[in-house]
């Protein structure tokens, strides 16, 4: 793994109580790279993301950001290194309006740039602009996901981590989310922003990801491009059920 890696993890082991979930994961994301994370239910995708974010303690192994050790650092310290999170279930603050959900997160990047402003986020998600004074819970699932992504962008991240990007969304809305992610990626790469995304839709995921990982019971069993994965239908059948 080179020094160009924005975020890098080595030999990660995580537990929930006594149950051993991650078994020595090596994981890296480079500047501006898009990594797709796949695997069946309960294989540890969310746990991996949450360990990287400092939300689940790593019992062994290390996490580095820009080469600096951040293993088990407080989540806000990791976030302030330029890592933003769009969680499973969206994590919208129900007692804040749409406007407040966005504004509470607003922060210039570590290098001072404010590429993503309130206005720019609303340009990207015009639906949110119409609902600024609604409570977070009054939004549809798709709108909540847009808000969660918009909120993450308000922190001007260098790395955007999305868990279950389109889970539970109607196909039309899911397509819109993918289109927006593609737009963010296109604009993001120019600004050096990376994306890690978990989703069950292999086709959509591999269309935007430079690299795909498959997780099985807390271990990485495949790492490669979408076309490399397509060339191994037995892997897709076995681990993704496609």
């Amino acid at each position: 793994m080179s020094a160009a890696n924005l975020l890098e993890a080595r030999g990660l082991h995580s537990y929930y109580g006594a149950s051993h979930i991650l078994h020595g994961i090596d994981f890296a994301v480079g500047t501006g790279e898009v990594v797709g994370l796949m695997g069946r239910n309960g294989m540890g995708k969310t746990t991996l993301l949450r360990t990287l974010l400092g939300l689940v303690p790593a019992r062994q192994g290390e996490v580095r950001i820009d080469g600096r050790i951040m293993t088990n650092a407080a989540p806000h310290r990791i976030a302030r290194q330029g890592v933003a999170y769009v969680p499973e279930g969206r994590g919208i603050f129900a007692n804040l309006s749409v406007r407040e959900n966005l504004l509470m997160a607003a922060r210039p990047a570590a290098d001072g740039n404010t590429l993503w402003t309130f206005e720019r986020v609303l340009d990207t998600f015009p639906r949110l602009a119409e609902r600024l004074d609604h409570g977070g819970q009054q939004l549809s699932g798709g709108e909540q996901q847009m808000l969660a992504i918009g909120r993450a962008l308000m922190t001007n991240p260098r790395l955007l981590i999305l868990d279950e990007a389109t889970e539970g969304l109607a196909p039309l809305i899911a397509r819109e989310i993918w289109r927006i992610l593609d737009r963010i990626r296109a604009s993001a790469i120019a600004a050096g922003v990376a994306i890690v995304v978990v989703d069950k839709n292999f086709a959509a995921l591999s269309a935007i990801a430079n690299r795909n990982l498959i997780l099985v019971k807390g271990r990485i069993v495949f790492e490669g491009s979408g076309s490399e994965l397509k060339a191994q239908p037995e892997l897709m059948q076995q681990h993704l059920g496609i």
Partner: protein
Amino acid sequence: MFYLIQLLNAVQYGLLLFLLSSGLTLIFGIMGVINLAHGSFYMVGAYLTYWLSKMTGSLWFAIPIGTAIAFAIGLLLETTIIRRLYRRDHLYQVLLTFGLILVFEELRSIFFGDEVHGVAVPEVLNFSIPLTETLSYPVYRLFITAVCLAIAALLYFVIHKTRAGMMIRAGNSNPEMASALGVNIPLLFAAVFAVGIALAAFAGAIAAPVTSVAPGMGNQVLIVCLVVVVIGGIGSINGAMIASLLIGLADTLGKILAPEYSGVAVYLLMAAILLWRPQGLGNKS
């Protein structure tokens, strides 16, 4: 006129309750800690004010300095002890904060003794506004009402209109998500705890001239504050405001209409509201 006076008293008592319980409800709502020692800071505020005003001769000096000292004690307590309770069972919280009540009572006994003390109303406010031939209303009580209203307005403004307030509410709704967006949750919790403690101490300080500064004074208000938190809805500042005023009114009305049962009025109100809205007035179901 009699009723006007009672109404003014009810509002003044209600607003004082609000200062006391706003911190309690925030600490319960955001950190999930039942701080039984919250009432002790009402006592701490009152005793510090008694002591400082006796030493300096000035209530105007004693109130802010006493409040600042309480804030510092709050910070110290949060970072050394309370912080360890966040992920614990309520049983530990109740045991530890009950222990703190005993510690504060003992310290009070050591430093100030067990006598009842009084604090003089400052000269400039030591007069009454005549309402009728025989009835008048003390200006210092109006002063308490005005100051409490100003602080309530400030609190409302900070929580609903500022970025710090957004972060507090976000931390209330989902602390983990807030931290993943860069909010320093340990710092936020320490600040909220210490401000809550300072508000309770301030209530004790400003009320000192109209109540007696006495042992156990914190425990009496604690019970009523817990009722405010339950009626208002855990974590809801707006709910705490409404609940405090309702309790002020219920308490005053109870004393007028049925003096022998006056202690019950507050609990009847609580039972009625909980039957109607179990989640409290300020929270959505």
